[in-house]
């Protein structure tokens, strides 16, 4: 178990940094409302290039963590833990982005995470 610890931490790190990367992307195009043209959206993303780069950096770090986690952990184990990513993202959405996640959305997420685990196990 103890020799698996670095791998487990790496997977966890990869999952959390990926979640934060998504939040950074979301923030970078947060126009306050959802009815802008493609041009306006891309323009804003360019203007907030710092947030976008932060997001990209998060994904690169996540990719590295994931690749190295797989060196000490078997894929199925890593995959199981990474299915928690969705839950982490939902929590980040609630806390950082103030999105309203109702019961129905949570039920959907639980089903998807469960389904992901079943697909991964087999």
């Amino acid at each position, binding site marked *: 178990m103890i020799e698996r610890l670095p791998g487990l931490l790496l997977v966890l790190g990869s999952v959390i940094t990926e979640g934060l990367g998504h939040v950074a992307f979301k923030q970078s195009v947060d126009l306050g*409302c959802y009815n802008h043209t493609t041009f306006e959206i891309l323009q804003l993303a360019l203007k*907030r290039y710092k947030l976008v780069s932060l997001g990209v950096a998060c994904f690169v770090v996540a990719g590295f963590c994931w690749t190295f986690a797989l060196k000490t952990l078997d894929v199925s184990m890593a995959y199981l833990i990474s299915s928690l990513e969705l839950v982490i993202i939902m929590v980040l959405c609630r806390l950082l982005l*103030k999105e309203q996640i109702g019961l129905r959305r949570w039920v959907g997420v639980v*089903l998807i995470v*469960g389904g992901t685990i079943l697909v991964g196990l*087999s």
Partner: protein
Amino acid sequence: MEHLPQAGKDIAKFPRMVWLIITITIAMETVAQMVWKSVVLGVPESAGFMETVRTVTVQPIFYLLLSIFGVQFIFWILLLAKADLSYARPITALSLVSVVACSVMFFGEKVGVMRMVGIVMILVGVWFISNTDHNTRAPHMPSPHATPGQPSETML
């Protein structure tokens, strides 16, 4: 007038544009995953950090993957500008279903009962999420055309 909130609605109006982008994103994700698999397969088991980086970056297909990521990024940004992250992200789990479908079609993989159940659960889960409002924050936000080009600049 699509952006105006309707009091007490719980079945969201089907956001066609959002779903078009979601479909493209999922298709690209499927391709990216297949390509990524073949890139990683080229890395020797025992490779260290620098060797891994080297083996990955000498493969031409890696640059194909990077450009897929680039295009995917643009679609993802467009999607996030139109929908909640907590709406869009769970739905992209559908790429898992398409990856399994592709594995069956191209590699003749068998799908067991457990995997079948998993896929059904994902589909039902996505159905649940698609029945929620795709932008839960919109009601509190000003109309886009009242203040064009004036997004809140407070987060940087």
